[in-house]
């Protein structure tokens, strides 16, 4: 026995209304209902950070929320970062610093870094390291990611 609910969410500035089963996570809703597959699912239990998005301006794990809970919320996903063909400075910095290889964890890192830099525009390297401590990367390694975030924050990197 499951319940269905009609929800309205704004994702990357666009409004959507959908009927969803209560048990559907926000991450699955974004991917399967809205076809926004930029949000990735790694562990699906709140450990890896790959599914990080912004909910009303705050970084959250979309696997650890139900879609029904997002009713009325404003969401930002990785698809909302670039302006047309122009990459967001964070995305450009990730490219410049080779901060991705397979790219699986990248959306989560970008959204985590986006939320973090909004709150702390001029962070120290230590602060950057702490900010991304809840996101796992299994191939690139964290050093280029730290450099990319510092680059996006306007700090010189070597």
């Amino acid at each position, binding site marked *: 026995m499951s319940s269905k609910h009609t929800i309205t969410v704004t994702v990357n500035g666009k409004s959507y209304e959908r009927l969803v089963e*209560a048990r559907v*996570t926000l991450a699955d809703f974004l991917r399967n209902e809205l076809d926004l597959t930029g949000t990735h699912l790694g562990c699906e239990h*709140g450990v890896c950070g790959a599914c990080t998005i912004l909910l009303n301006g705050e970084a959250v*794990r979309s696997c*650890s*929320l*139900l879609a*029904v809970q997002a009713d009325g919320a404003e969401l930002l996903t990785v698809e909302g970062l670039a302006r047309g063909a122009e990459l967001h400075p964070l995305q450009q910095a990730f490219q410049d610093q080779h901060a991705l290889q397979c790219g699986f964890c990248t959306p989560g890192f970008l959204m985590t870094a986006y939320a*973090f830099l909004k709150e702390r525009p001029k962070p120290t390297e230590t602060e950057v390291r702490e900010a991304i401590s809840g996101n796992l990367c299994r191939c690139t390694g964290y050093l280029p990611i730290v450099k990319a975030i510092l680059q996006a924050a306007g700090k010189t990197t070597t």
Partner: protein
Amino acid sequence: MKPAPFEYFAPQAIDEALKLLQKYGEEAKVLAGGQSLMPLLSLRLARPAVIIDINRLRDLAFIRSEPDGGLRIGALARQRAVERSGQVATQCPLIAAAMPLIGHFQIRNRGTIGGSLAHADPAAELPAVSLTLEAEFVVRSTRGERAIAAKDFFLGYMTTAIEPSELLTEIRIPATRPRVGWAIEEVARRRGDFAMVGVVTLVELNGNDTCQNSRIVVFGAGEKPERVARAERLLCGKRTDEHALAEVAKAVTEDLDPVSDVHASAEYRKEVGGVLTRRALQNAFKRAQKETA
């Protein structure tokens, strides 16, 4: 890795939530920040028939200072809000210091104070901190309200004194006494992970910097956070010298009876419990000595 089906309710008022709890009792699970419950649902370690989502009960998201210096925190206050609260930093710096140890900032953006306490993970920081501070838990049902002392609240592994028809609504923290110092220390595999073992201490000094009252709480080493009574007694009447602290640390190591699991062996937990006790006490003494009577 997907939750099993359930009925979902998102009450707009506390009374409505209590009626639902009364009706569904053990069939229902309360969903607050979801940082523990959602993984349990996804892994199907929990399969409740009913989910009662309390996130719309904004009345429970408060942080309030009391005239006597105490603090009241609504169960739905987000951990991030508590972490950033000036009131908490001033009136209960131990809580402020514990917050960054909980998960990661994305988790604290959603995770609530009440959720962590009601979930009662033995390796979590907040249950140990609330036991150290002798906090009080306010729970409500359709029959009324009652307050439970921290020492009676945590019953065992992920088990509390909250009845199925009750909702945790508020945590009350008594005012800090003068000349009290505190510290929290833990060892985790990664920053933000659950502690393999952790220690929370509180010392109250008299005029000549001698300990007259102390609390030593170990977490992550048993089914629930526990005070180590013998170590607390040993510390009474002591000043902060290496010999005294080593003796207290040894008592903690001896009295712990932890389990071995994939994260750490029992022997390791016992040893580290002692080491962390010594470190925590050194910091707690330092803080207490700075406080004036």
